[in-house]
């Protein structure tokens, strides 16, 4: 709870502090255009694409050249990309790390070359110049707390993991287990990976329904794709009304489902803010100004009551 307050305070201060940043002219001391290199975890991931879209929008507003490259989930590739950014002498680097440990050398190299590096969305073990993102543990706490409250602190829960061993999976599991410990009435009767995948989650849910039938009271899925798969399987089995499903990310499909009432809740991770804050930090650091070491963008729980404000107008 303490950390949430802290986060809110930091964010609030940042929001006010940076509100007129975008209109400022972003030219370096020599008067030439600033160049920011960005290496993203995977441009096949919708959330990352959203973060990057916002970065691009923000960069254009600020008059900064943004070079985005796709690390395709390979930490090795990411390190090489950062090396080439260093060689190109970019003014700042934004990295959306592939792995906690394996992407760390990139941070060290950028710092050694005296180029500011900002981690966006997830962390590395080597501390960068600045971090912009959200705490995955917190998102899972939010989701599981929602389940606990809905069930009145008593009932059987199943959990679908992301790809085992990835930072997001580890943290989301950690957050969920913290809350489960607080509610001894909640029982985790099964947990299994569905590898972030909707079709795999659907099959897994079907099998669980066979196994546990009506014993299941709630499903927590580490991401919305899997949550949607679980919803589909439960709906097909005629059990959706009896089982609560909560997942994380607030992708458009999930928001629609929340609106329809099939998905009970999702957790909104603010891609736009992560993207824009990252660019802001990059510009400031490039100009030699100081920024907060850590900018935590708060999560928001999305339920039927507040879903409307998260729905984007269709493109």
């Amino acid at each position, binding site marked *: 709870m303490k950390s949430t307050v802290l986060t809110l305070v930091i964010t609030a201060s940042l929001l006010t502090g940076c509100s007129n940043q975008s209109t400022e002219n972003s030219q370096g001391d020599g008067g030439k255009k600033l160049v920011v290199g960005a290496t993203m975890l995977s441009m096949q991931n919708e959330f990352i694409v959203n973060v990057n879209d916002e970065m691009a929008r923000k960069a254009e507003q600020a008059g900064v050249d943004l070079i985005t490259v796709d690390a395709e989930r390979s930490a090795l590739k990411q390190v090489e990309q950062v090396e080439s950014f260093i060689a190109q002498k970019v003014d700042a680097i934004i990295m959306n790390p592939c792995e906690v440990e394996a992407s760390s050398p990139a941070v060290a190299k950028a710092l050694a070359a005296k180029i500011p590096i900002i981690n966006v969305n997830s962390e590395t073990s080597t501390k960068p110049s600045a971090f912009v993102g959200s705490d995955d543990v917190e998102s899972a706490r939010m989701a599981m707390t929602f389940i606990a409250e809905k069930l009145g602190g008593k009932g059987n829960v199943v959990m679908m993991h992301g790809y085992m061993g990835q930072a997001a999976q580890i943290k989301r599991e950690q957050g969920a287990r913290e809350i489960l410990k607080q509610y001894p009435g909640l029982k985790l009767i099964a947990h299994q990976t569905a590898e972030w995948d909707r079709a795999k989650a*659907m099959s897994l849910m*079907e*099998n669980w329904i066979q196994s546990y039938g009506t014993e299941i009271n709630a499903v927590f899925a580490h991401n919305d794709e899997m949550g949607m798969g679980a919803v589909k399987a439960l709906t097909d089995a005629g059990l959706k009304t009896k089982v609560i499903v909560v997942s994380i990310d607030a992708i458009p499909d999930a928001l629609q489902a929340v609106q329809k009432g099939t998905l009970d809740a999702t957790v909104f991770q603010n891609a736009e803010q992560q993207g824009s804050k990252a660019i802001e930090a990059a510009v400031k650091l490039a100009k030699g100004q100081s920024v907060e070491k850590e900018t935590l963008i708060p999560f928001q729980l999305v339920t039927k009551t507040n879903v409307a404000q998260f729905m984007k107008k269709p493109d």
Partner: protein
Amino acid sequence: MKNAIDTYFKPVRESYKTRVSRLGKAGIFVAFIVICVILSLVTPRFLTVPNLMIIVTQVSINALLAFGVTFVIITGGIDLSLGSMVAVTGVVAALFARQDTYPVIVPVLAGLLSGVLFGAFNGFVITRSKVPPFIVTLGTMTIGRGLALILSKGRPISNLSDSFNFIGGGQVLGVPMPIIILISMFAVCSVILKKTVLGRYMYAVGGNEQATRASGIQISNIKMAVYTMSGLLAALAGIVLTSRITTGQPNAGAGFELDAIAAAIIGGTSTSGGTGTMTGTLIGALLIGVISNGLDLLNVSSYYQQVVMGVIIIGAVVLDSVNRK
């Protein structure tokens, strides 16, 4: 007259090889039954009609892909682009399947057509360039993934029409649609393989390409046909998948080719070509599905599931190589 025939057909004593070979073919079926019996003893939830329905439904996508790749492997080839074809065809179908746009036949035909084109492209490059199918389809696997991302702009395509979603989610007389599609495709593919000239030529090409050529058969036509059929079946799998999860996902189907190839191999299709049956492949796919379902029912970690699957694949290939000696 009868005597004359009898002397010619006096059964030659069955050789050791023939006996081992019989055993090999029966082996997979026996293994399948044994695993089913074990699972129904361990968990009472296994042998129930709804659970069996679910298994077959879950298996349907892999089985459709496996049927296609069985044709390909019988001719001595390989198709690694299956998973990417699932994504491309699924995305194409989804693009035409948005609510209140076209009648359901349009996305289905569009999806199938994209699969046929993709498969024919594989076949064309393989027959014209003489580059090994492994390399060609490795290339088109990446191309396909890229196309799926381009067509979908990297985002899932949702809000598909109810009539389209019926293909993967609906039921007819209590039987899920994917099962109906699976059974009908199994029948069609079996007939093609066993009863048609094309099927016979597939075995011939895989068994001895030179001798087949010397028998006046146009090898490239046969190869074009199998890769195109593989594309068509992958498209069907892509449509069923898209409809089942009610979204067109550019990331869908990653790694599906390996499961499909595994099903074919477990079912006795030899990777060196010339042998294989649709029944074997179907059992191979069911075996994979049953194991994964059973281990889920028992709440066994997927780590162990992967180990079990690997052991079964190697076992099947060892059995096959014993066969060939």
